[in-house]
């Protein structure tokens, strides 16, 4: 009996002794499992390889009133050209629906019986490598274990500007499918401007094809959404900025409309943020709507400034042209870009 006990103790000790040298190794193995941040970014950009559905909560923080508004949205995703988002109002009923049916993207309001048809967002899968290069050139990307979100294990990916050191975005990526389950977008003042988080998510669910179709009923009002004018041609005389913030590159242009008064849209990006420059004849009036635009003095002219969820909007006129600059930059930087436009 004693011999058996001793034998068992010896066996247990021997097992423990054998495991002790492995402990640091297993810790190292766990550390090794942390993916390379660039690889995690690449897989995140490729998007999930399986369908999913989930409930998302979105919070927008208002800069002016320090209030925050939130809304809930149901998301059904079966690929980059087949998705559905149902935006709920405060009572929990569906207020607006966005459906991509493989050909078009529809935005409609069931209660108002109105629908807007537009093109699908242009995919850029083939640009992922150049996108990764641009982002990693401008941002220091770090990865660490993230908190559980909607019951899923995550990796936390943080993007800090190499130019300013400011944290601009945080993503919590699903460890299995690389879907961004939570994200935070920071303003130039380093406070969170917008955030989204999945409150529930399921991968590989059975999704009815009816979710990804929209057939307006009789009596609905259908409107075509704004899309680039194909007849605008090129405008070599349009003015472009000679100075851009660090890391921003020119990405392309199109015209919101053709005809006698084209409105040109030039886009610049640092991989994460987008800077848009619109220009048209100064004969074209600009309607600021309810954005609370106010006059702002600029070094060489007078401008108009508005605050939107997309960032600041600066408008000015020079040389018979009207310009509008939109981007998540501070006013000083926007003005510097504006003053560099001849």
């Amino acid at each position, binding site marked *: 009996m004693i011999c058996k006990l001793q034998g068992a103790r010896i066996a247990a000790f021997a097992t423990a002794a054998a495991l002790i040298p492995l402990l640091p190794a297993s810790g190292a193995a766990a550390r090794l499992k942390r993916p390379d941040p660039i690889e995690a*970014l690449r897989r995140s*950009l490729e998007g999930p390889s399986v369908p999913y559905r989930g409930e998302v909560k*979105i919070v*927008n923080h208002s800069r002016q*009133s320090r*209030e*925050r*508004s*939130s809304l809930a*949205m149901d998301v059904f995703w079966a690929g980059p050209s087949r998705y559905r*988002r149902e*935006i709920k*109002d*405060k009572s929990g009923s569906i207020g*607006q629906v*966005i459906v991509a049916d493989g050909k078009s993207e529809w*935005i409609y309001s069931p*209660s*108002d019986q*109105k629908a*807007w048809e*537009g093109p699908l*967002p*242009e995919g*850029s899968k083939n*640009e992922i490598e150049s*996108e990764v290069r641009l982002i990693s050139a401008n941002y220091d990307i770090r990865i660490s274990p993230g908190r559980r979100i909607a019951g899923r294990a995550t990796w936390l990916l943080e993007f800090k500007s190499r130019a300013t050191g400011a944290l601009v975005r945080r993503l919590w990526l699903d460890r299995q499918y690389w879907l961004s389950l939570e*994200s935070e*977008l920071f303003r130039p003042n380093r406070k969170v401007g*917008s*955030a*989204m988080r999945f409150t529930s998510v399921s991968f590989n669910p059975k999704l009815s094809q009816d979710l990804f179709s929209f057939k307006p009923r009789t009596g609905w009002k259908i*409107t*075509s*959404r*704004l899309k680039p004018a194909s007849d605008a041609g090129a405008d070599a005389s349009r003015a472009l900025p000679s100075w851009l913030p660090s890391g921003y590159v020119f990405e392309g242009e199109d015209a*919101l409309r053709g005809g006698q*008064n084209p*409105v040109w*849209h030039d*886009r610049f*990006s640092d991989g*994460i943020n*987008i800077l*848009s420059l*619109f220009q*048209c*004849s100064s004969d*074209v*009036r*600009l*309607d*600021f*709507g309810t*954005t609370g635009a106010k006059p702002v003095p600029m070094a060489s002219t007078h401008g108009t400034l*508005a605050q*939107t969820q*997309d960032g600041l909007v600066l408008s000015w006129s020079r040389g018979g042209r009207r310009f*509008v600059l*939109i981007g998540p930059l501070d006013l000083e930087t926007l003005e510097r870009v504006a003053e560099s436009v001849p």
Partner: protein
Amino acid sequence: MTCAECRENLSAYADGALNFPERQAIGGHLEACPACRAELSFIQSMKAAVAGLPSPRMPADLKAALLAEAKRQTRRESFWPSLWALPSFRYPAAALAACFAALLVVYAVGRKERGPSISLNAMLIAHEEYALSRPLAPADIIYSRLPEQVESSGENPHDL
């Protein structure tokens, strides 16, 4: 949104008479403001109480008196034709109307000559739609505000 702006629209909000962006804005404020929530609750209870009241019937003698007065009014000669017959009224009134019409024409022509316009919302939509084409776009956040911008950009944003 301030409390004053919110309360100005609370009654319409309770009636469901606001459009989606307005509902969202007020809903957002209500979420953070207990005082306005209490005000909404009071308005809703008042509306429910008023809706529950029985409609009073008009007294029979009052109804008869009103009908008789209406008949007398229709038989009475209209006031304006008799006034129009007076030259001292007719000529100055006609001159005033002509001036007003001319002003309207000048205003309409002026508006046309000022050229087309474009809404900032149309530009914001173009900006966000381009952002959506980027692989790292915060798609859910952008889509959460896109319908409001599309709705606010006008019935036909092509017609600048």
